[in-house]
């Protein structure tokens, strides 16, 4: 282990953090523009060319906002909760490969931060941790809306995590490895979405619920809970919650694209390794567009139906999907 390797990791980590925070800023703009177009509006287009400086303006505005702590709040937990929420969101994509290997200044650099052999397990455990921040935020605010929102978010996220975890089983089963690098390589000729469409659908639904996106945005149902678990948060603490939410959106899109849509695979990627991150970026952008589209189209679920759907439909369906995939794997052989 030499110093150059550690510097390589540090630089890659900084790149991931910059891409994620920059991505967060521009996903908010992307969402507002696309939603506006779907509702026959124009959306923010005044700050900079096509509104491209809008996220910067929003950020500067939030920096200079007053931060309030409600009376009776558990101060330490209240301050720590946004950080606890944002850290898992930032590190969950550490195991996703961005491409093969490139030659950078005479050094062979693999386009990934870490290729651990239990990558899928890592993703599952990090997503579990992100529930804590939301629960603690709701509980420490000393606010009824926040507490109800936090509780609802917790129950919803853990219920849909089951289906999410089972959706991961299909690609592992087909590849025989939990490493995302191996899973992507196995999709060189055929994307897993073709082999296991049911798993793909389960993943899409469960991941929407996992990041609290519409139509499963119960934890922050404006009409009944004002803003859910982050009702009492303002200024940069509020920004941290928003950052966590949008980075998680990018994260589930990246992981989903890697598991089912071939990740960085695409035409000519072997000859030109720099195409890998570009293909991944295109897939993630399309996936995010789909999430925004769903938000513009579908009304919100009722809470009891949401829980019933997760436990009574999605869970049996995931078990069925695992059995079907296993039988298919044996019939295909290999």
């Amino acid at each position, binding site marked *: *282990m030499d110093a150059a390797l550690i510097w390589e990791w540090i630089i*890659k980590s900084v790149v*991931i*953090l910059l891409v994620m925070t920059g991505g967060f800023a521009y996903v908010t703009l992307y969402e507002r523009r696309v939603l506006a177009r779907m509702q026959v509006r124009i959306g923010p287009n005044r700050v900079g060319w096509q509104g491209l400086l809008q996220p910067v303006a929003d950020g500067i505005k*939030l*920096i*200079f*906002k007053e*931060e*309030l702590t*409600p*009376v*009776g709040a558990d101060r330490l937990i209240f301050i720590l909760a*946004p*950080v606890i929420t*944002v*850290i898992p969101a*930032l*590190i969950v994509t*550490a*195991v996703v490969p961005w491409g093969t290997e490139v030659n950078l200044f005479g050094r062979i650099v693999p386009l990934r*931060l*870490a290729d*651990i052999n239990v990558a899928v397990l890592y993703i599952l455990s990090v997503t579990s941790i992100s529930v804590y921040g939301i629960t603690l935020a709701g*509980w420490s*605010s*000393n*606010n*009824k*809306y926040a*507490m109800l929102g936090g*509780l609802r978010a917790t*129950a919803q996220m*853990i*219920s849909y*995590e*089951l289906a999410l*975890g*089972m959706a991961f*089983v299909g690609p592992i*089963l087909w590849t*025989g490895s*939990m490493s995302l690098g191996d899973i992507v390589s196995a999709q060189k000729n055929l994307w897993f979405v073709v082999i296991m469409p049911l798993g793909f659908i389960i993943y899409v639904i469960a991941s929407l619920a996992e990041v609290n996106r519409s139509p499963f945005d119960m934890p922050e149902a404006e009409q009944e809970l*004002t803003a859910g678990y982050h*009702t*009492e948060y303002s*200024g*940069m603490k509020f*920004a941290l919650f928003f950052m966590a939410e949008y980075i998680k959106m990018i994260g589930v899109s990246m992981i989903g694209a890697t598991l089912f849509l071939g990740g960085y695979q695409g035409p000519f990627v072997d000859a030109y390794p720099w195409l890998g991150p570009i293909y991944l970026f295109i897939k993630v952008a399309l996936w995010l567009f789909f999430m925004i589209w769903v938000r513009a189209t579908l009304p919100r679920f009722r*809470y*009891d139906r949401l*829980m019933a759907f997760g436990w*009574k439909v999605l*869970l049996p369906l995931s*078990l069925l999907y695992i*059995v079907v995939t*296993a*039988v298919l*794997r*044996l019939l295909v052989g290999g």
Partner: protein
Amino acid sequence: MLNDYLPIIILLVLATVLGFLVLIIGALFGPRRPTQRKAAPYESGMIPYGPGTRRISVRYYLVAVLFILFDIETVFFLPWAVVFRQLGWFALIEMLVFIGILLIGFVYVWKKGALEWE
């Protein structure tokens, strides 16, 4: 072995630094003029009534307990999926037995009404 996880630890440390940095930036630049009204918990403009944290419906505990049960089952699926190709039909039948036992418990929970919300 540790070499594989070191980059993740580096990312974790940097992410923690970033999180606290954002908090500090907000605390440094924001104004701080609290009043009694501003600091009161938000309750749609009404004067807050009673404590903010109250008793939690037992349904949430039930969901949490069921989640732990089924999440452990999910964890069993993952290593099974990794070695599935080497074991072949034997692994499939064994997992069918496992899913069968799981389903008996699931049907019991369903019939008991633990999955009903109110």
